[in-house]
């Protein structure tokens, strides 16, 4: 098979990956605090073969970066729904270690800890936030009041390179060595929840793009395989 087919096939493969990425974004259009990802394709790097296979410059999936734009802030009226305005992430203690999230849909556990929907403890600047029996109130600067006593202050951090955070299940992000710095200017909005930042319009447009370019590539492979080669065999074979 000549190189052209491999190029087109590699293009088809990346479109399938793109479809997977789009499917995940569209499936999570209703997930609070979800961050979509920007993918990129690049020409495959093949230093050892460039001289031999000049034509075999194929494409592979390149890196991805988290799209950290804020989602729409939706007022819910719940006391423990907290949205961060602008830059910053909540810090949570999961079973696997410290993680970060923009999903401020918190609740109070039976022991009085402020937790995420998964039951991970939300961390304050001085460890997990434990609430007393009084009514919980969260101030704009992230100070958590339980009754009249302060229970602590939400540990809201920012990253210089937030796009490199790695996603985990449950709108949770892993830092993988990126250093968090306290976001002292962050303000929180209580009674609101940050929605998913997936734009359905954008994603459906990309979906059309992926399907159509897949179709074009399929046509080129099909023509090469079914017409060009068959014709070549016919013509050359007659001689």
């Amino acid at each position, binding site marked *: 098979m000549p190189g052209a087919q491999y190029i087109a096939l590699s293009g*088809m493969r990346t*479109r*399938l990956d793109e*479809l*997977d*990425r*789009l*499917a*995940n*974004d*569209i*499936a*999570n*259009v*209703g*997930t*609070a605090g*979800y961050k979509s*990802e920007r993918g990129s394709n690049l020409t495959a*790097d093949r230093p050892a073969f460039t001289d031999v296979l000049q034509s075999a410059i194929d494409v592979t999936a390149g*890196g*991805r*970066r988290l799209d950290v734009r804020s989602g729409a802030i939706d007022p*819910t*009226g*719940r006391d423990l729904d907290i949205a961060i305005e602008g830059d910053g992430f909540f810090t949570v203690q999961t079973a696997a270690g410290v993680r970060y999230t923009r999903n401020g*849909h918190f*609740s*109070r*556990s*039976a022991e*009085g800890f402020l937790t995420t*929907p*998964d039951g991970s403890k939300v961390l304050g600047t001085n460890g997990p936030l434990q*609430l007393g*029996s009084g*009514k919980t109130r969260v101030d704009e600067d992230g100070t958590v009041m339980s009754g009249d006593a302060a229970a602590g202050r939400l540990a809201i951090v920012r990253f210089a390179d937030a796009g*490199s955070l*790695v*996603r*985990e*299940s*449950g*709108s949770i992000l892993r830092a*993988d*060595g990126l250093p968090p710095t306290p976001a002292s200017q962050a303000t929180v909005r209580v009674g609101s929840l940050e929605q998913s930042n997936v734009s*359905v319009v954008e*994603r*459906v447009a990309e*979906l*059309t793009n*992926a*399907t159509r370019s*897949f*179709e074009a590539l*399929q046509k080129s*492979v*099909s023509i090469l*395989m*079914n017409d060009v080669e068959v014709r070549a065999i016919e013509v050359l074979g007659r001689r």
Partner: protein
Amino acid sequence: MIRALYTAASGMNAQQANIDNVAHNLANVNTAGFKKSHMEFEDLVYQQTKLPGAPTSATGEAPAGLDMGLGTRPVATSRDFSAGNMRQTSGPLDIAVEGDGFLQVALPSGITGYTRSGSLHRDGQGQVVTGEGYPLEPQISIPANATAITISKDGIVSAAMPGQSAAQQFGTIELATFQNPGGLKPMGGNLFTVTTASGEPQTGAPGTDSRGSVAQGYLEDSNVSVVEEMVNMILGQRAYEANSKVIKAADEMLQQVNSLVR
């Protein structure tokens, strides 16, 4: 096979659950003391294909990783315990709780149920019961010949008895509050029961701590907002549609793979 098919299917399932929840809220728009719930979703595990920082050559390393998400799932229905509107009624045994407290109800199974629906009645023995006939806890009995039943803000039930000038007291309605009302388990009939997540009830007379006071002659309406549910319904329906478009796209692409060879 293409992962996108299953990913989009998970999205459709989630949105269907969302619509189910909207339907439940809307169906209870006239249920006194009903508390609306909200469906929460979370993204599923990620399939890691390339770790960020993995070496790409002897000297270079990948600046960004490659992982593929596998969809979404409903994770919780969180209940919104905000107060509904107070509606004035003429029933002397219609009460609404202004605050966080729940009325306590003795269920036939022996456990205690908690409710915000204060539409109470007197049964044949004069006992104060809920619409379903379950007695309040602690039990309160009002004799049949009592008139002008009064329930004070702090829950004291009194009535005028024939031949007596002073009103007679028949007991106090107690309220219960919870550390985490969101952890209460709904069991139908406007009733909730205790779970480990909700914490043990703290009972006491109305007006003490943050239990709230009792308002006689009022009922608490459902806190469902029809406008909000309509918006949720439209969003859910459109998201469902978008997910089905992904399935269609995946299907078309598979079809094209099959037609590679003529």
